[in-house]
């Protein structure tokens, strides 16, 4: 168990360091002058120098990385927009909860829809219900958010007028963004639930449960589904990071004031420091969620860590 934990931590830490290096040093790897790329060739010399200083390009590489880490840790990191005064961290502190809220609601929605659908589909294997559910899940992974979101807005906000289209306050405002964000995951999870239920259903202990005369309902929900859900929930956890990344698109569609909107706005304003802080925060979250999921899975199912340890 210790070796398993150590390996997981190590990979997580290396990933975070890797992203830190990428976001700090990537500008140096570009051929030509990075500042030209960012400001355009006609920018004045004063602006260039100020930008160089704000993003640490005037420093040697190791100092640039160190300064960035130090500034993030102490909260001293400032935007790289003139006049270089606003701090980045309070901005992120304000936006991050909104993105987390959206992602968590979307994930719960996906799980709540996918599990019943997948179980139903497995129980009716080979029937029209099963085929219908699986075609739905194939369609679900094929629909781009950038299309689904606008369609939902048109139908439910504009034509039916049931829900607010953009922005808005309260619980109603989150419904359409959460559906948009969750569809892909919902589709994928329902497929996984189906195949997992079918796998478990063939296990000996399920036959035993039936043989001893338990009601079919008890067998399915107590014995089959409970075991089948372990891998499904794990995948859901691992996909949470993808959901966070997907939220960037959803936020743009619905004008949701979260991290994604901040990231895209900062990119458009060429506010490089905010961009890299956002990327780093997203990555840290992603890595942490994966780490926690992995460890939780290792604790629930000891086979995993044994097999992982031998590798």
């Amino acid at each position, binding site marked *: 168990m210790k070796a398993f934990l150590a390996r997981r931590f190590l990979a997580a830490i290396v990933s975070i360091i890797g992203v830190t290096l990428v976001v700090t040093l990537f500008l140096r790897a570009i051929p030509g002058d990075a500042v030209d790329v960012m400001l355009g060739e006609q920018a004045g010399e004063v602006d260039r120098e100020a930008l160089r200083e704000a993003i640490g390009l005037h420093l040697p590489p190791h100092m640039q990385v160190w300064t960035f880490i130090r500034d993030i840790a102490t909260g001293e990191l400032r935007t790289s927009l003139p006049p270089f005064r606003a701090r980045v961290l309070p901005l992120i502190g304000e936006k991050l909860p909104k993105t987390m809220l959206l992602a968590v609601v979307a994930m719960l929605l996906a799980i709540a829809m996918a599990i019943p659908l997948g179980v139903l589909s497995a129980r009716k294997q080979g029937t029209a219900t099963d085929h219908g559910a699986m075609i739905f899940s194939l369609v679900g992974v094929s629909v781009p958010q*950038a299309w689904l979101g*606008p369609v939902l807005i048109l139908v439910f906000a504009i034509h039916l007028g049931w829900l607010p289209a953009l922005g808005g306050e309260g619980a109603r405002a989150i419904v359409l963004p959460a559906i948009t964000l969750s569809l892909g995951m919902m589709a994928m999870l329902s497929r996984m639930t189906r195949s997992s239920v079918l796998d478990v259903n063939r296990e000996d202990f399920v036959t035993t449960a039936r043989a001893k005369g338990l009601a079919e309902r008890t067998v399915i929900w107590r014995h089959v589904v409970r075991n089948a859900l372990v891998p499904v929930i794990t995948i859901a956890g691992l996909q949470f990071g993808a959901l966070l990344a997907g939220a*960037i698109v959803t936020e743009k569609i619905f004008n949701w004031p979260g991290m994604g909107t901040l*990231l895209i706005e900062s990119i458009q304003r060429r506010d490089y420091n905010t961009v890299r802080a956002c990327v780093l925060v997203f990555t840290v979250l*992603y890595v942490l969620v994966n780490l926690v999921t*992995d460890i939780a899975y290792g604790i629930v199912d000891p086979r995993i860590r044994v097999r992982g340890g031998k590798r």
Partner: protein
Amino acid sequence: MKAPFDIILRAMVLPGARPTDDEGHQVIPDFASSPKHPRSRRISRQERIRRTLRRYLLAWIGLGLVTLVTLAAVFAPWLSPYTPDAMNLANELAGPSRAHLFGTGDNGVDVLTHVLYGARISLLVAMLTTLVSVVVGVSLGALAGYAGGMVDGLLMRLVDVVLAFPGILLAIFITAVLGPAVEHLILALALTGWVGYARLARGQVMALRDREYVQAARALGATPLRVVVRHLLPNIAGPILVSATFGLPAVILAEVALSFLGLGVPPGTPSWGALLESGSQYLLVAPHLAAFPGLAVIITVLGFNFLGDGIRDRLDPRGRRAG
């Protein structure tokens, strides 16, 4: 990270959904208590043919859709009723009509023409990205699987680290810094895209490298390169093909997302994502602007997914024995 990935693979790539009994007849696994379906039942020849046709029906539909879209992309200049930059200011943002089957957009450009040209760009990006990812991933994965030891350990740690990155986020960062361009898009997506193929190739090579025919080749003095290229790669091509068939539509969706965020293709390039982006700004006055490019994406991605499902079923050895 390995364990859940195995589960994904098992669920997505090698589902044990179609087991057969000893004589190769399909067995219908079912819930034993259901009186309609006994636990296993032989099926007649006729029933089997019907079932095979039905099983591959979706795959045929998928192949049809993919072919259709590919032809549309290749022959876009001949199929398009207008040129991509033909404007008609008198007829802006008009709905579908006989002259403009998909309606007109900003400045009266023909939406159908843009969707056709968009197919070129979106498919080109997806195919090149997948090609680069497969070549890099399979080379490294096969190397790791065949060499084993230190090389394998190092490469797999690298894979672990790259897998821990949110790929789309890295792509956003890279395209944001480098600026929108097709090459940057491909670079950004392939940078994390190769790891899946590397894992798959490594696992497959490890499973095969001690088979008799591989040992025989080695005993005859074949160099490692020759063993891998001539004996191993042809035998692992199937699963890699399946994986690429699922990977390609994922790249199309990633391109759509990036272009929608204004980070994919340069402004003015009609990729599907860019068309969706500009279309969604006219959602109220001209919903057809976003609807048609979106439908094109859905049809294409769905086609690849259907096709991938079919190929996977065909290549799954347990499925094949029954067929």
